């Protein structure tokens, strides 16, 4: 299982829980699994196409990752807003 760690406001939408244990081979797989488990998150991290939103950053085991980064049991995926989104 991979742990996805959320911060606010995503944590609030996910039942107030920061850590979520999920199955999946890649970052986008576990995030899609997170959406299925927590439907209120649908559309917040991944768009309708299943693409990681442009100004969301993911870190896998403390290293910057991407949608297709492979994950393994015991990994932690941190989901954070990117500083780039603050340009608006």
């Amino acid at each position, binding site marked *: 299982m991979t742990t996805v760690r959320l911060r606010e*406001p*995503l944590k609030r939408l996910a039942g107030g829980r920061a850590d979520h244990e999920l199955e999946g081979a890649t970052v986008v797989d576990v995030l899609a699994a997170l959406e299925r488990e927590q439907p*209120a998150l649908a*559309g*917040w*991290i991944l*768009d*309708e*196409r299943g*693409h990681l*939103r442009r*100004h*969301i950053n993911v870190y896998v085991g403390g290293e910057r990752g991407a949608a297709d980064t492979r994950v393994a049991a015991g990994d932690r995926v941190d989901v954070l*807003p*990117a500083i780039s*989104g*603050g*340009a*608006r």
Partner: protein
Amino acid sequence: MTELLVGTKKGLFVLEGEPGEGFEITARAFAGEPVEYAMRDPRSGRILAAVTSAFYGPKLHYAEDADGEWEQATGVALPDGRNEALARLWVIVAGEDGTLYMGGDPGVLFTSQDGGASWSIVRSLWDHPTRPDWQPGGGGLCLHSIVPWPGEPERLALAMSAVGVWLTDDGMRTWRHGNDGLAPRYVPEGTDPGMTLCVHDLHRAARRPERMFMQFHGGVYRSDDAGASWTDIGAGLPSDFGFPMVLDPADPDSAYVIPLTADMDRTTPDGRVRVYETRDAGETWTARGDGLPSEHAYLTVLRQALDRTGSGDALELYFGATSGAVYASGDAGASWSAAAEHLPPVYSVRTA
């Protein structure tokens, strides 16, 4: 007492007051988030707010009051099957039969039958065979104007940048263009503009529904045949470039616009802020600027940032600028005062 819902770059502000007597900010919601449009549904009384987080994408929220509990609406997403994602929500309009309509980018129309809690995409427009030819404007492929026909819910007009006007008479089963007479200056003379028609705002005269007015990307137009064809009426304006427009529902010959210098200089001409009014269907235009900044004032007023309430002599007008100022008139534009001066850049103003 008039309530103004002001969508800004940094949240939704609720202002309450009377023109000339001052307005107070009574609530703020979505602090820090871009609120592109907010309105109160006259049927349900709910506020609906379109919020496009730079991080989390466009969402529609609703609440009984701005400082109450907000809920996220469902169904506000594009269907599977195309490699596109919803970019932004531009406008929400209450229809004749309790239907709410919502337009967004990329050229998408949604409807709601439950006061905005849940939405469905209008497939006849989404699947329209001409869609591959639709061209976005600078603000995206934005469906920004939704114009019901009083008393006839089967009839509707839409405008989209830069696709032009779409008309339906059969409850959105079929759509036809209403672009005859529009003459864009941004294509070579004599060239068929096709679907590169950058309508900025579209309105219908309440007491003569076949009459419509349009602010175009260079040009102000009137239609007397329900949007099928258009006549340029912008000759009496200092500039026929601008974004928002409103009509006095008591007078089918009326329209108000806020000219900006040009597409390459989207500020009020000569540093003077003036609203222009016609009462003869565009034959003549009169500047209405008493109380508005008259020198060194280079404001930009965006598409959804002008609204009205009341009619006739009691017509109230309100507009906001990207400077963060909101101006109010309680006498059909004859005199103006500031309702707010230091808000974040104003995206939309709607009366409630």
